[in-house]
C-alpha cells in the first residue's frame, strides 16, 4: 500500500509545471530505490489554476477523496491564503515551497506545528541580501554600497519587498539589522509590471537616475526583466550594481546583449552544478527524464519538497504524525539548491526552511553564483555597464 502525497500546483504556469515534474522525478527515484518504510510513494497532483477557490477545493479533495497522508506544493500566495483554513481543518503534515508573502504566515499563525514552509518569507529575503552585500563589500574592496534604490511593482509581490526594505532601512539607521554596515540612503518608487499591462518604467528610471544609487534593485516579474534594462539604457541610467529580483527569468534573457552583468536574486542556477554534486545530480536526472532544462528554481525546490518529506518519514520510522514532525525539525537535507536545508523558526511559524536567497550575476548568458561566497562560481564583475 503506497504512502500518498497530495500536491497542489499551478500546472499552467512554468513554475508549477516544473515543480511538479521535479516532484515526479523525486518520487520515481525514491520508488526505484525501494520506497520508504518499505512502501512505495504515490504522488497525486491537482492543478490550482492559480485560483484561490480551486486551490482550496483541491486540498479538500486530496484530504477526503484521495485520503492523502501529506500535502506538498506551492507558488502563489493568494491561492495559499485560501488553502490555509482548509489545511488547518485537516492538520496533516504540510511541506510548502511557495507563498513567500508574510500574510500567509500571519494566516497560518504560530500553533501549526505540522506546517513546514521552505521558501524564504519576503522579509527574510531582504535581510539575506543585507548579509550578502555586506560580505561582498568586504570581499571586493572596490564595491561601494551606500545609496540603494528599490523599484517595485505595485502589486503584492513588489509592495511587500518595499515595506520590508523600509523596515530594514529604519533598522540600519538605528544601527541594527543586516544592512547596518552599508546602507546609508534608501529610496523607492513603484511601477506597473508588464505582466499586468504596464511596461513603461521610464518615469521610475528617471527618478532612480536622479537619486544616483550605488545599488539599484527592481522587484517585479519575469516579463519586466528585458524592458527594464532596455529602458534604463534608453534613459542612460547605469547604476554600478543593477539587480533584478523577479521570481523567474525570461526564456532568452541570457541571449540578450543587455543582460550582461545584470545581477539577480534567486535560489538556484544551473551553474551550481559546478560546486554542488546534489545540484548536478538533480539537473542531469531532470533533463534525462523530461527532455527539457529546469528553468526556474521551483524545479529544484519541488525536488527538495519530496525528498525532505521522505527523509523525515524515514527518520521517524513510522507514519506517526508527531514523530515525523520531530524528525523533520531535526534532519539536515543536502539540497540541490547548493545549501543544506534545516528547519528554524521564523517570525511567526515554528518550521521555516530556507532563509536567504542567493546573489547571482548574468555573465556571458549564464547565471553565475556570486554569494554565498563559499558557493561562488565566479567573481563579481563591477561596475555594471551597458555594452555597445
Amino acid at each position, binding site marked *: 500500500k503506497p504512502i500518498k502525497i497530495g500536491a497542489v500546483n499551478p500546472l499552467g*504556469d*512554468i513554475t508549477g509545471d516544473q515543480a511538479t515534474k521535479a516532484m515526479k522525478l523525486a518520487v520515481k527515484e525514491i520508488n526505484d530505490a525501494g520506497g520508504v518504510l518499505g512502501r512505495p510513494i504515490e504522488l497525486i497532483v491537482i492543478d490550482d489554476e492559480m485560483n484561490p477557490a480551486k486551490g482550496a477545493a483541491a486540498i479538500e479533495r486530496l484530504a477526503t477523496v484521495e485520503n492523502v497522508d501529506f500535502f506538498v506544493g506551492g507558488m502563489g500566495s493568494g491561492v495559499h491564503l485560501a488553502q490555509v483554513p482548509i489545511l488547518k481543518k485537516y492538520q496533516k503534515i504540510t511541506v510548502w515551497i511557495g507563498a513567500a508573502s508574510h500574510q500567509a504566515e500571519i494566516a497560518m499563525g504560530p500553533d501549526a506545528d505540522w506546517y513546514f514552509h521552505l521558501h524564504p518569507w519576503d522579509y527574510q529575503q531582504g535581510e539575506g541580501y543585507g548579509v550578502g552585500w555586506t560580505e561582498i563589500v568586504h570581499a571586493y574592496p572596490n564595491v561601494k554600497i551606500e545609496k540603494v534604490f528599490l523599484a517595485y511593482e505595485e502589486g503584492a509581490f513588489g509592495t511587500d519587498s518595499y515595506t520590508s526594505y523600509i523596515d530594514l532601512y529604519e533598522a540600519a539607521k538605528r544601527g541594527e539589522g543586516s544592512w547596518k554596515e552599508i546602507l546609508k540612503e534608501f529610496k523607492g518608487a513603484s511601477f506597473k509590471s*508588464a505582466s499586468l499591462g504596464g511596461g513603461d518604467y521610464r*518615469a521610475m528610471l*528617471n527618478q532612480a537616475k536622479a537619486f544616483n544609487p550605488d545599488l539599484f534593485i527592481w522587484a517585479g516579474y*519575469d516579463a519586466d526583466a528585458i524592458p527594464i534594462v532596455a529602458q534604463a539604457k534608453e534613459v542612460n541610467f547605469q547604476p554600478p550594481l543593477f539587480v533584478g529580483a523577479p521570481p523567474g527569468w525570461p526564456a532568452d534573457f541570457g541571449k540578450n546583449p543587455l543582460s550582461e552583468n545584470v545581477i539577480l536574486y534567486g535560489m538556484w542556477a544551473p551553474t551550481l552544478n559546478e560546486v554542488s554534486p546534489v545540484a548536478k545530480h538533480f539537473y542531469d536526472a531532470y533533463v534525462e527524464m523530461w527532455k527539457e532544462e529546469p*528553468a526556474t528554481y521551483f524545479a529544484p525546490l519541488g525536488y527538495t519538497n519530496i525528498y525532505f518529506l521522505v527523509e523525515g518519514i524515514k527518520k521517524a520510522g513510522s507514519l506517526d504524525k508527531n514523530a515525523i514532525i520531530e524528525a523533520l525539525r531535526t534532519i539536515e537535507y543536502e539540497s540541490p539548491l547548493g545549501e543544506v536545508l534545516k528547519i528554524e523558526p521564523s517570525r511567526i511559524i515554528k518550521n521555516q526552511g530556507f532563509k536567504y536567497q542567493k546573489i547571482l550575476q548574468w555573465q556571458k548568458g549564464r547565471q553565475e553564483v556570486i554569494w554565498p561566497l563559499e558557493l561562488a562560481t565566479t567573481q563579481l564583475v563591477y561596475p555594471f555597464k551597458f555594452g555597445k
Partner: protein
Amino acid sequence: MEKTNKSLKKTLIAFIIFLIVVGIWKPLALVYGIQRGGLYSLIGLPLALILGIVGILNLAHGDFLTLGLYIGYIFFNSWSIDPLISMAPLFFILFGLGMVIYSILIRRVLKAGHLNQLLLTFGISMIIIELIKIIWTTRPRSVYTSYASSSVTLGNMSIGMYEFIYPAMAIAVLVILQLFLKKTRLGQAASAVGQNPKGAEIVGINTNVVYLVVFSIAFGIIGVAASVMLPRTPVFPLSGNPYTLKSFALVAMAGLGNLNGILIGGITLGVAEAIVQSIPGYEGWSDVVFFGILIAVILLNAYRRPES
C-alpha cells in the same frame, strides 16, 4: 452637421493646448505620454473599426495581439527577421487569421447580438491563452534589436526615439482607414452594413464580404501593431490581454464610430498617465487617473448629448 464640426474643432484646440501646457511643465511626461498614447491608439483602432463601424464585439482583441507577437517572435527567432520587416508578412498572416476566425466563428453570431459575441470571443480568448501556454509555456520571450533602446540626449534628458513609431503608425493607420472608409466603395459599404445590414443587402451590398474584409483588415492592423511593439515588449501568454480593456475604454471614450477620437483619446490618456507617473510617490495612482478621465469623458458626453 455643422455642430459636430464645431465641437470637433473645440476638442482639437483644447487637446493641443493641453499638450503644450504639459510640454512646458513636464516635457518628459509629454514624450512618454505621446508614445504610450500612440500605442493605445494603434491597438485601439482595429477594435474601434470592428466594434464602431460594423458592430462586432471582440473580447479576444488583446489575445490576437499576443498571437501576433508570438508570430513576430518566431520570425525573429527562427529566421532572424527583424520585426519591422516581418511587419508585412504579419499583416497578411493576421489578415488571413481574421478571415478564418470570421468565416468559421464570428459569422455565426453576427445576428445573435453583442452578448453572444461577447461569450464566443471570451471562449476564443481562453483557448488562445491556454494554447500558447502549452506551446511556449508562461516564460516571457523577447526580441533584441539595438535600435529599440537608442536615444538622443537633450540637455540632461535622454529621450528614446523608437517609441515615436507608435504615434506615427497610429496616425498612418488612422489616415489610411479614414481614406478607406470615406473614399472606397467597400469602406462606405462598411458604414452602411454597420447601421443596417438588411438595408445594405437591399442596396446591393454583399454584407458578408464587407464583414469579412473589415474584420480581416482589423486583424491585419493588429498584426502591424504587434510588429512595431515587438522590439519593446516581452512576449508571454498575457502580453496583449490588458490591451483589450484599454481598447474598449478608448472606443467608449471616443464614442462608437469615431476613429479620430481614438487618437485624441489615446494620447490624452497616455499623457495623463505619464504625468501622474512622473510625480514621485503617486505612481500608483496612474490607473485612477486613466479610468477617472475615461469615466468623466463618458459621463460628459452622455449629458451633453441632446435628447433623441
